[in-house]
């Protein structure tokens, strides 16, 4: 168990060394080198004993390095560690140089990559791994020699792992930017229309779920996906040159009619927000809103929206065309009109209705009147 832990730690240690160099492994390594000098022997010795018992399939570079150290005396182990440190530094610089020069080459290789895989990949790896391979090949060979299994197999496996590490790190460095660009271009921007904001807010606040478990009810908005780039055909038409077709709009607007739940929710909100009045002023405001209290200064014509002029109230002769021109009925109706013209409480509409009622009444009694 302890051995495996060591291996894991060693593996991480080594992968950081060999992978995309960051400051971390450097910092990670230096205390090891400086502080753990007196302890390294013991740790290495313990590693010796542990790693002999570990599984043979563990192809970790750390194991390789330590086992390389174990093959020699403790002093040489220290020197090897220092040497490894140096290797790391040199490797970093070389890597940076390589990367600066090889960016273009790698881009080209990328384009050609899907066409021909094997040889070019290995070529890439060989190109990249140039600064590494001499040192690590030695280490790999040392490991292979130390392990009882087939030396060549282990060597090749270790080197392949190294290559893979590098490839993945390099790919990630360049490939991620492209992937992000793709993702962002695919993303769409949702816009809220103010007409439906109320519904949206209500759906957001409420924890209601549809059959699918989706919260937002008007799903047709998802179909209206706007691109991040603006185009000429996107947006509401002003209908300056073409006749406005209002049918589809109305159809769309009438679809989300307020459901019972919406009404209930609105009532709930109204009930909650309607707090009792804190003082007399608020009470009076509430009464004025309800209509209990009049608005001051008092307007005598509140509720009376009679837009008619005075002559429409007084000169009502024109409505007497349906009646006979002579006789008691005419006499009677003229009296009625005289009375209506003096009435300030009725609107013109009501007066006309009054006269029309009489007209209808006398129409019904016409046959009766003929007998008389």
């Amino acid at each position: 168990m302890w051995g495996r832990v060591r291996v894991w730690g060693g593996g991480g240690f080594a992968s950081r060394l060999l992978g995309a160099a960051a400051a971390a492994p450097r910092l990670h390594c230096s205390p090891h080198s400086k502080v753990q000098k007196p302890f390294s022997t013991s740790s290495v010795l313990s590693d010796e004993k542990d790693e002999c018992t570990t599984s043979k399939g563990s192809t970790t570079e750390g194991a390789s390095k330590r086992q390389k150290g174990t093959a020699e005396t403790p002093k040489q182990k220290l020197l090897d560690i220092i040497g490894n440190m140096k290797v790391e530094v040199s490797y970093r610089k070389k890597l940076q140089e390589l990367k600066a020069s090889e960016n273009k080459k790698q881009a080209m290789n990328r384009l050609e990559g899907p066409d021909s895989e094997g040889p070019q990949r290995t070529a890439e790896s060989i190109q990249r791994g140039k600064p590494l391979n001499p040192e690590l090949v030695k280490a790999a060979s040392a490991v292979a020699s130390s392990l009882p299994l087939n030396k060549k197999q282990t060597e090749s496996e270790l080197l392949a792992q190294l290559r893979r590490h590098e490839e993945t790190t390099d790919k990630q460095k360049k490939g991620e930017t492209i992937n992000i660009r793709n993702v962002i271009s695919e993303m769409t921007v949702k816009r809220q229309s103010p007409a439906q904001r109320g519904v949206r807010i209500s759906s957001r606040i409420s924890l209601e779920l549809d059959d699918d478990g989706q919260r937002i009810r008007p799903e047709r908005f998802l179909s209206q996906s706007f691109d991040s780039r603006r185009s000429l055909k996107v947006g509401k038409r002003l209908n300056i040159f073409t006749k406005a077709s209002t049918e589809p709009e109305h159809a769309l607007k009438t679809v989300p009619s307020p459901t019972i739940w919406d009404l209930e929710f609105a009532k709930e909100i109204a009930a909650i927000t309607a707090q009792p009045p804190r003082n007399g002023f608020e009470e009076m405001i509430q009464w004025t809103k309800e209509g209990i209290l009049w608005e001051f200064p008092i307007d005598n014509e509140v509720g009376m929206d009679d837009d008619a002029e005075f002559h429409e109230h007084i000169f009502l002769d024109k409505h007497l065309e349906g009646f006979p021109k002579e006789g008691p009925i005419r006499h009677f109706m003229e009296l009625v009109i005289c009375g209506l013209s003096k009435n300030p409480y009725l609107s013109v509409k009501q007066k006309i209705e009054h006269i029309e009622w009489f007209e209808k009444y006398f129409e019904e009694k016409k046959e009766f009147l003929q007998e008389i």
Partner: protein
Amino acid sequence: MAALGWVLRAARQVLPSPCPGQVRTYYVDWRMLRDVKRRRLAYEYADERLRINAIRKNTILPKELQEVADKEIAALPRDSCPSRIHNRCVLTSRPRGVRRRWRLSRIVFRHFADHAQVSGVQRAMW
């Protein structure tokens, strides 16, 4: 039947308003309810009654027409007559001793006035 339905609806529509004090959801008694019905009907038939009466109380129109009008007005529902309305107390449905200005019976009026809940009313002393 229709009247009952209207009455039930009127009773139900009185929602529990957040007002302090007593909340009355029913009419005090059946007499008050009947009075309410009469008032409603009187309001509905007021125009028609006025016009038919204008024909009746006439010296110009022939008498036969006026007799027909008499029969017509008699055919209207009895409760549509405004003279059947009786001003009862609004709170207790007391038929007598009701002050028109406050629509309250004398006992209720006195109760409220003594508790200073009637505006502008004070115990007389001269």
